[in-house]
């Protein structure tokens, strides 16, 4: 009797939070769909909705079949898939290492995948899914390397980030070197591997990415609860019954897999992995797992960034330049804030 009012209020509170959570995720999803629709409808010219729908249903429509079916649709689909992957993989790392700076594009994993992809394509003349496989392997290798190099009586977050920065400096030089050896390399293609771009996207590229999103995303989602427990610290998580090492290994494999697959197709789109998590955290206000909102925000960032880069800016930029310019000030802001609140991550 004495407890019941409190209990009621707790239950009530939980319901309210759960409702709010699904509401926010719903809004994000609707926004994403709306942006997807917009990018299909409106490019250099406007295509009427009924034409777009007919193209999506597989009909041949004069004019629209090419612009929508060949240009806009593959681009939008690829943007969304890559964004989902970057958002998910990035936030998984940030949660696991308890540091917003520990995102794969800062600690060198994206650079590793990109370097491997460039090497596979330029030097080994490979194509398609094999490139993704190599990129994933290289991403895992770099993750392992950075972890091993920063291990010294345990891994301190700050050291891991700086070691990662050193490793990515080398990998970036390697990318520049391979690109410089490839004579028939246009600027646009080079930009893909330097900052990320979805130019010239093809629907066939999307297939390995779909598989990666389903497989690795599924793996990550199955670990969502344990991952959230890791936020409390390794010891607390272990006390709560989480297999810390096992969770960590699975999360790393899944997150690196997603990041690397996306990188193999679209290049290391700058700062999407880094930005999605903190934006999601700001929106969700500490209300449940960040995985899904962060994935949605990643997709929106890439989609919107690519659209801006194509149509809204005075000249055409690849998406990575737009997200890079967006992410850079935020990165600096984050460091300022992290320094000010001395002991925070």
């Amino acid at each position, binding site marked *: 009797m004495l407890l019941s009012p409190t209990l009621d209020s707790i239950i009530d509170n939980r319901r309210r939070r759960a409702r709010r959570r699904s509401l926010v995720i719903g809004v994000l999803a609707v926004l994403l769909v709306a942006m997807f629709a917009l990018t299909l409808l409106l490019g250099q010219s406007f295509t009427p909705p009924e034409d777009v729908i007919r193209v999506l249903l597989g009909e041949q429509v004069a004019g629209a079949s090419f612009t929508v079916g060949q240009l806009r649709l593959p681009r939008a689909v690829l943007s969304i898939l890559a964004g989902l992957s970057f958002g998910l993989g990035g936030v998984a790392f940030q949660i696991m290492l308890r540091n917003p700076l520990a995102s794969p594009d800062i600690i060198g994993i994206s650079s590793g995948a990109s370097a491997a992809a460039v090497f596979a394509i330029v030097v080994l003349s490979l194509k398609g899914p094999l490139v993704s496989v190599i990129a994933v392997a290289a991403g895992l290798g770099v993750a392992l390397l950075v972890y091993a190099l920063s291990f010294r009586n345990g891994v301190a977050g700050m050291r891991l980030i700086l070691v990662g920065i050193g490793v990515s400096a080398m990998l970036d*030089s390697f990318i520049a070197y391979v690109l410089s050896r490839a004579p028939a390399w246009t600027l646009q293609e080079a*930009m893909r591997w330097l900052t990320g771009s979805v130019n010239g996207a093809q629907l066939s590229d999307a297939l390995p990415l779909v598989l990666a999103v389903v497989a690795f995303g599924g793996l990550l989602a199955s670990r969502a609860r344990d991952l959230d427990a890791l936020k409390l610290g390794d010891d607390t998580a272990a006390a709560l019954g989480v297999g810390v090492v096992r969770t960590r290994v699975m999360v790393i494999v899944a997150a690196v897999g997603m990041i690397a697959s996306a990188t193999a197709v679209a290049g290391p789109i700058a*700062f999407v992995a880094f930005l999605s998590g903190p934006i999601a955290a700001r929106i969700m206000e500490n209300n449940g797992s960040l995985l899904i909102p962060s994935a949605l925000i990643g997709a929106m960032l890439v989609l919107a960034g690519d659209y801006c880069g194509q149509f809204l800016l005075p*000249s055409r930029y690849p998406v990575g*330049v737009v997200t890079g310019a967006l992410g*850079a000030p935020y990165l*600096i802001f984050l460091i300022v804030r992290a320094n000010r609140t001395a002991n925070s991550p």
Partner: protein
Amino acid sequence: MTAGRTEASARAPVPERSRRARGLSLAALVAILAALCALSVAIGTRAIPWADIVAALENQVLGGQVDNIGQAAVAVRIPRTLLALLAGAALGLAGAIMQGVTRNPLADPGILGVNMGASLAVAVGIAWFDISSAHAYIVAAILGAGVSAVFVYVIGSLGRGGATPLKLALAGAATSVAFSSLVIAVVLPRADIAGGVRSWQIGGVGGATFDRIFHVLPFLAAGFAIGLLSARRLNSLALGDELAAGLGERVAMARAVAALGAVLLCGATTAICGPIGFLGLVVPHLGRLLVGVDHRWLLPFSALGGACLLLAADIVGRIIARPAELDVGIVTAFVGAPVFIWMVRRQRVHEL
């Protein structure tokens, strides 16, 4: 207090080195430098017989006629060698000064974002303000280097504990990443300069001419003079701010002057070579192993060592990628990044 020294030197007091030992290593370094200069003229992507090399050198001095392609190639290598020499010395010295000023073993013009800042300033100047004279490039680069040095230092020293090595390195690396994506954003729409996007990201000494070197020479000379003359002040600063003030040093002034020297050196170098990283990190540490922590010796050694290392890196870059060549910035990244990682591992991490 000991942040400016490596852990090793803090543990075991560096034995006072005799003047003779230092003089000997100085002579050895000069000899190595001379040998590297000769190699740099003689070796390249194209194999050239000795006779042509000698003839080309004579032409250079006496102003004769260039007879064949071999001699022409050597004629290109001479300014290139000179530029590598100057740039290496400038970056090595700048690194040593920055490590002294910030008392931070991880300081380096590349890691602290100073080179990228200079690069960004030149890119902005070309794309938006239509600057085109060599002088304007250099001034823009120096301004950019100065602004980004201050910016990174302020960001890195916010919060508890002031500018710790790791915070400063992190702030610099982040700023570097940010600037490099801004450089792409600025340069890309300009088709006329975008072809060289890579040259904005990775430094090299390939396109050297005597003309360009002459433009940058006064700035470099000023930088060298200020840098080398602040050796004694840097020695006082190494004792810690309070002690330095107690010895009658005007701490803020000493810092500002020495930093100005470093900024001049980095800015001028970046204006003609593009951002070359990690050189300023590695060289002073090697110098400390050789001559100890006294800046009066360390600074000239860092300059000489930087010149040696950059020349060596440039030669290696020309050899291993035949028939193409590797920008020297790529080689220094591969030499320097492992050293950086090694040093990060040695740092005790208090922050987390």
